[in-house]
């Protein structure tokens, strides 16, 4: 009997492994192999007209922080790329913070509608996804440019006498990032608030908590899984954003995504682009690790 059971067990395990094979194959072919290629490229020399020369070199990583003198090969510290990383991180954090501030009340509003109306609100939230990100970003350009909707209205109303420059500023990039990624914040928070038992809020009121205390002591802690997920879903793509800063920043306010694209494009330095990507990925992974650790601790404490 037990022998039969163990045989059955072994067969089950083999079948499970077989069933998982397609998924594993897809992950290896589409995820792991390209990633390994990027890692390998970052340790090679760049070809003269793009591409790489199969020769080991740490040059790409060295040039992240140092500038090599053209004539005597001495290295001098150059924080230009580091600054871009830091600026990108700041954009990522600020975008996440604004999305959270705007997204939480939005999700709360949606979750407190009658059950039969909620799906309509979710549908409305997904409308931006019906069109391409590029199209939406260009639409934002039309709204905020000097002759755009905002400036025209403000001038017509007499609030301004000459247009305020909004396009090609940090503000424009931030607006674009928030606009692009806000739904990724709202949806997970909505999902956790929708499951929230509002009788717990009543219990809070009953036990002498005021509205703010009910929000901070009961609703937010219980919506935390949604808040963490939403923050990751906004922070990660915002950190690697490419189209938004390129179009709304006008090339003068580079983010790391644009810098990477530049290396594979006109700069023809594939190893440097690969090195940027690897460092970016490590930053994102560290940030996620930090985030997960912190939310894990709260659950246990």
């Amino acid at each position, binding site marked *: 009997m037990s022998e039969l059971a163990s045989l059955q067990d072994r067969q089950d395990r083999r079948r499970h492994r077989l069933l998982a094979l397609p998924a594993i194959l897809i992950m290896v072919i589409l995820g792991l192999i390209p990633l390994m290629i990027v890692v390998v490229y970052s340790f090679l020399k760049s070809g003269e007209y793009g591409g790489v020369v199969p020769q080991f070199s740490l040059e790409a990583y060295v040039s992240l922080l140092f500038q090599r003198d053209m004539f005597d090969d001495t290295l001098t510290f150059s924080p230009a790329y580091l600054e871009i990383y830091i600026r990108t991180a700041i954009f990522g954090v600020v975008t996440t913070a604004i999305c959270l501030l705007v997204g939480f009340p939005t999700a709360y509003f949606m979750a407190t509608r009658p059950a039969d109306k909620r799906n309509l609100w979710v549908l409305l939230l997904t409308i931006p996804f019906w069109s391409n990100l590029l199209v939406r970003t260009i639409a934002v350009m039309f709204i905020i440019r000097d002759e755009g909707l905002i400036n025209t209205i403000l001038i017509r109303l007499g609030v301004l006498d000459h247009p305020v420059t909004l396009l090609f500023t940090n503000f424009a990039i931030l607006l674009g990032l928030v606009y692009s990624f806000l739904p990724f914040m709202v949806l997970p928070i909505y999902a956790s608030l929708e499951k929230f038992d509002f009788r717990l809020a*009543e*219990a809070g009121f009953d*036990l*002498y*908590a*005021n509205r703010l205390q009910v929000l901070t002591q009961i609703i937010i802690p219980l919506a935390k899984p949604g808040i963490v997920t939403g923050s990751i879903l906004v922070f990660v793509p915002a950190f690697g954003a490419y189209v938004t800063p390129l179009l709304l920043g006008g090339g003068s306010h580079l983010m790391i995504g644009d810098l990477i694209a530049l290396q594979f494009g006109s700069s023809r330095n594939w190893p440097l682009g690969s090195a940027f990507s690897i460092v970016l990925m490590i930053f994102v992974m560290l940030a996620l690790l930090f985030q997960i650790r912190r939310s894990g601790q709260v659950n246990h404490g």
Partner: protein
Amino acid sequence: MKNSASHQAASGGAVSILGVLKDFGNFRAVVDVSIDIRSNEFFTLLGPSGCGKTTLLRMLAGFEAPSAGRILLDGADISALPPNKRPINTVFQNYALFPHMTVAENIGFGLKMLGKPAAEIASTVDEMLRLVRLEHAGNRAVTQLSGGQQQRIALARALAPRPKLLLLDEPLSALDLKLRKSMQIELKRLQQETEITFIFVTHDQEEALTMSDRIAVMNGGKVLQIGSAHEIYEHPADRFVAGFIGETNFLEGELTGSAGGAGTVQLRCGPTVEALTAKSVASSGAVTIVVRPEQLEVVVPGSPQAVDATVEQIVYFGTDRHIHARLGDGTALTIRQQNRPGAKEGLSQGERIGVAIPPRVAQILKD
């Protein structure tokens, strides 16, 4: 305002509900209810679901505002106060424990919101854990507890701020029978130890009878009768109360005379009985009398002043048995007999018996 909800002399509040109405759109959930609840009383609102008892409780807690009328606590009008400004706590039907907090954090939540110092909170939490006999559960997650334990924590959490009034919204309905029985005794003990006024909502008449000092029976948003368990069981005010509380036999008849709180009723099925009357019953005319199953006696068929019946079914309950019998005119009767050890089985299905109604036990209802 905060101080009114804090530690005070351990004495329960007296509540006056004055002409309270509650409308939800076109539906009137609570119809002109007036109840006076005494200090330190275990008061039960009893009724079927949808009778307005929970709505009334939610108005006491402050979750709903009365459409009309006033609610006084120790003479002060609290109708307009929000829940967090009322020295009243609630034990919710589903317990509503905070899942992200430990047992101790749950119990201490009310005191924390009142701004009590940490040391005082810690000692009160310990005291409450002792009170509900879960001394060692303080650090556990509430999600690890069984239903009965969650129930006790919900009680401890609501009692910790020492409210003047504790509201209990069908708190035992999710527990199994055995646990429910022991929690009934536990609740009564807690009420006596803490000397807090308890208002208990239930649809379970047995729960109401075993625990309450007084019971208000509600139906259709109205209070039909207020009285002690004994009064309500023995002297139901109307047909609904009689039928809702315990098993009851209804018999039709004609009132032929009344004197000194009793009346003579000529029953349609034959015998004449002397039954107790409420003051407001007319001195003659068609009436219904209620007789509890345990008040009926089985006698030899054909006995004088008894009515013959046929045994249809005998249901055995351990301590007693119910004999379902049918009279000649088709009326069903339930008779309850206590089982004594060694007693013979006696009756069998289809047997002819006589049923006697002893004088002055049946109650005449006003129709």
